């Protein structure tokens, strides 16, 4: 995004025009449909087809092919949904919270964060459908939905958040599309045509910048309450029930702080990938990794704080229903998972990231990998174990129904959703400039001009 006070002198200067040339050639180098892209998309498509075949089995046979039964009726589908919604929240954190507070270093990262947000939010809705035994009844949610139900609120906010994220990815890219459309003449025709249409008659005029800045600013502010709503409502899907383990008044902030952890780690992984594969070391510098590592430490510490509240307070009181649940987590069936997630995915990463050496791109990538994996498993811990201890006595069910174990089909369908996310990220980052060309050029020109002036 452009700063409020547009300095016309900068964007008309010769230096700036040269800068645009060099930056765009670096970034547009990756915008192409090459063999690698086709092979990668082909591989993803085959994998998607295989996993979707598993879904057709589920569609035909019903949810009986999953591990979901009477007692545990929400499994990895819902855990995956919560993870997706959580991860998509990072778009708001980077672009709005950090961006609006004036952090300049987020500029090259903001679009990556929005790509993550769009991809995860788009697929989150599909994940919910995979949890439905009769997806043909989806319209009933809208036809007969109750305004009292958090499920209706969730459908509403997830959809709205997706569209606003999409706009927030697209709008700041309009100047880049205009810059690029004349520079990608050797690319496929449809891409050039798409750039032409999507650049909305952009002629780099001051007036257009003013309108665009207004629009983007509105979106940046709008996305904050929306993002809070989307994940708070997701937490309320659980917290509005009296079930032990879900019956918590801090579930909203607990989920949101957790969302920032998983989202930030996802952005770091994406950053590393683009830096290395797209050879963007010049723009995604070690300094960027250093800074975002600090963000990861901050959000992780906040999340640890909420974890302490979430487990220590009920653990101190030990109401009978909580006691059964917490015992399962702390020392029972789920203890190995619970402690590995808390330690390997949260506490140890924070300790490691206190060291400067660990905030270098590669170590940070490894740590983020752990954090992201733990984030997924954490959602599993939040969703599944509380269901094993309902208030009503469990009766007349076979013993093997009492412990939830995801089936192969279920895992395949979940993998399908991850593949879809990766496909969307690939398309958005391969067919469009992954870094903001215009903003980087402007920022660099300004920095150089300031340096000249001070000399």
């Amino acid at each position, binding site marked *: 995004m452009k700063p409020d006070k547009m300095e016309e002198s900068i964007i008309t200067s010769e230096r700036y025009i040269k800068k645009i040339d060099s930056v765009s050639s670096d970034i547009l180098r990756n915008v192409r449909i090459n063999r690698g892209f086709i092979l990668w998309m082909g591989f993803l498509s085959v994998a998607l087809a295989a996993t979707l075949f598993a879904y057709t089995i589920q569609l035909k046979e019903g949810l009986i092919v999953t591990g979901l039964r009477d007692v545990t009726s929400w499994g990895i589908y819902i855990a995956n949904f919560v993870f997706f919604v959580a991860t998509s929240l990072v778009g708001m954190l980077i672009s709005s919270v950090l961006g609006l507070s004036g952090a300049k270093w987020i500029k090259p990262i903001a679009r990556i964060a929005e790509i993550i947000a769009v991809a995860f939010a788009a697929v989150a809705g599909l994940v919910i459908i995979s949890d439905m035994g009769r997806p043909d009844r989806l319209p009933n949610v809208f036809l007969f*939905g109750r305004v*009292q139900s958090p499920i209706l609120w969730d459908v509403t906010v997830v959809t*709205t958040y997706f569209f*606003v994220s999409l706009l927030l990815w697209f709008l700041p890219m309009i100047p880049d599309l205009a810059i690029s459309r004349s520079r990608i003449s050797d690319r496929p025709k449809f891409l050039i045509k798409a750039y032409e249409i999507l650049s909305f008659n*952009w*002629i780099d005029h001051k007036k*257009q910048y003013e309108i665009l800045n207004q629009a983007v600013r509105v979106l940046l502010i*709008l996305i904050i309450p929306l993002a809070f709503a989307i994940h708070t409502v997701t937490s309320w899907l659980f917290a509005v029930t009296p079930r032990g383990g879900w019956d918590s008044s801090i579930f909203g902030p607990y989920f949101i702080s957790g969302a920032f952890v998983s989202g930030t780690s996802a952005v770091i992984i994406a950053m590393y990938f683009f830096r290395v594969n797209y050879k963007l070391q010049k723009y995604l510098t070690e300094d960027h990794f250093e800074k975002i590592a600090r963000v990861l430490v901050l959000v992780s510490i906040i999340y640890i704080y909420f974890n302490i509240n979430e487990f220590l307070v009920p653990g101190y009181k030990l109401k009978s229903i909580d006691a059964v649940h917490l015992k399962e987590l702390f020392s029972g069936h789920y203890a190995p998972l619970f402690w590995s997630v808390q330690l390997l995915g949260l506490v140890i990463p924070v300790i490691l990231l206190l060291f400067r050496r660990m905030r270098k791109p590669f170590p940070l990538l490894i740590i983020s990998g752990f954090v992201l994996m733990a984030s997924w498993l954490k959602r599993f811990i939040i969703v599944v174990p509380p269901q094993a201890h309902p208030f009503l*006595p469990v*009766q007349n069910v076979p013993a093997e129904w009492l412990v939830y174990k995801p089936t192969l089909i279920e895992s395949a369908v979940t993998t399908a959703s991850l593949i879809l996310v990766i496909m969307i990220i690939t398309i958005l980052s391969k067919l469009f400039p992954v870094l903001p060309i215009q903003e980087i050029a402007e920022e660099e020109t300004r920095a150089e001009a300031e340096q000249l002036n001070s000399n």
Partner: protein
Amino acid sequence: MKNILLVIITLQLFIFDLKSQEWIVPDDKKSKLSTFPFDDITRKAGEKLFSVNCMSCHGTPGKGNFLNLVPPPGDPATEKIQRNSDGEIFYKITTGRGQMPSFKSVLSSPEIWNIISYLRSFNKTYQQQVMAVITSSAYPGADIGLFLLFNSSDSTVILRASATKGNSTVPVTGAEVKLLIHRTFGLLTVDEAKTTDKNGMATFRLPDNLPGDTSGNIMVSARFVNEELFGSSTKDTSLCAGIKTIPVNLVADRAMWNNVRKAPVWLILTYSLGLLTALGFIFYVLMKLRDIFIVGETLSSEKPSKEK
């Protein structure tokens, strides 16, 4: 499924000390017998009573689908329960233990015998022993009846017991009688048991805060305490002796748990306004996008493109 349940039951037997599970029935109660022979009518009546009072925990006899409680309620068709004598089952139903409630004030003696009659139909080897003769009836051969009269001025219920044989009617004197009120589950004993006077009358005082139905009616029931001696004659009467109670209709007003047409107003407003605000801003942004397009079009037609 049956095997799994058997395994679960056996495991629980190991876990819980067998000795502490023992349910001791006093000797004099063990030999108690039904005063009437079991037949199809008693079995039918028993089945009905069982489904209302017992099935929720014990399941359907012979199916093994009782609740998974600790200790397990058990299937009444199994040998474990069938090896009890009639008197033992009668005692256990009457007194209850742990999670099993006492049915003393819920079911009358004949009703409990009807249930036992039903349970015994699952036992092929069972042979009923009926109490030889009704030991000693106070009024042999007579029809004993109970009558109730409600005096609203001082909230008392006057009971009169009489025995009719042929054309002659005599008051039943010196008999202990009790007054019960029907509740959702079981019967509530009101006042204390009274002994009929020389006119066969007894007076019970009703509390003045009894909740009745919508017109203030309550269902009362009178019985002899010693049913062996005076017979199991009961008198059920509806009396206008309670407070009018209008049940609260939980779905009459707007509420969170109601259907969408009766959703709380504040919620409808919050949801709609929130959604409209978001959509409004999105619309605003799309209009801005249109502006960018128009500005680009007009400016580029006015002068040559500035685009680099």
